[in-house]
């Protein structure tokens, strides 16, 4: 299992699509920085197919005023949870 990390907004090009196409069915995806925009209810459909394997970084949601606005289907983790996700994965790939 690998952890894919996306730091780009869904609107910032085809980065999300690239990450998704490189994922196997047990890989996980973590949204950080401007990537957390993808957790908004109006944009989360862009991640359909990886339900239960989609994570978002709490600190970056909070800094952007998005903490109470994210979709329930996304799992919120803090930076310690980010470290845990990297422990559990064999490898991490970053998409920026």
């Amino acid at each position, binding site marked *: 299992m690998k952890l894919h990390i996306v730091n780009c907004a869904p609107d910032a090009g085809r980065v999300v699509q690239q990450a998704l196409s490189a994922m196997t069915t047990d890989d996980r995806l973590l949204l*950080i*920085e*401007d990537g957390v925009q993808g957790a908004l209810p109006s944009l989360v459909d862009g991640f359909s197919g990886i339900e239960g394997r989609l994570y978002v970084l709490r600190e970056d949601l909070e800094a952007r005023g998005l903490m109470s606005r994210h979709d329930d289907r996304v799992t919120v983790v803090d930076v*310690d949870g980010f*470290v845990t996700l990297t422990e559990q994965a064999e*490898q*991490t790939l*970053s*998409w920026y």
Partner: protein
Amino acid sequence: MRYAILLMGAPYSDQASHSALRFARALLARGHRLETVFFYHDGVYNAARLAAPPQDEPHLVDGWAALNAEHGVTLQVCIAAALRRGLMDEREASRHGKSGYSVEAPFELTGLGQLIDLGLQCDRLVTFGP
């Protein structure tokens, strides 16, 4: 576990450097070892010794130096990426016949081979891009 970080974003312009420093502190707090932060692409600008951010903003260069002092994390800067961008230590400056220098310890200029080694020898390599 043994971690390494690859940082490719410029300080202040992108969040990458802040994210990387925050992640570094979190993994160290959980008892992992952080071997090296490798600076490549615009990440090399993190090594600029004259950086003078406003007092109420985080000082990234000092933040990296503190990781080195407190946890022995080595700070490796890709030399090819650095020289193009005006970042050189005293030794490179004298080799290029220039006065002054823009990079100093604990940052060290090194080759890209180090990055490949880190990636294959550490348990985890985590990249922070711009």
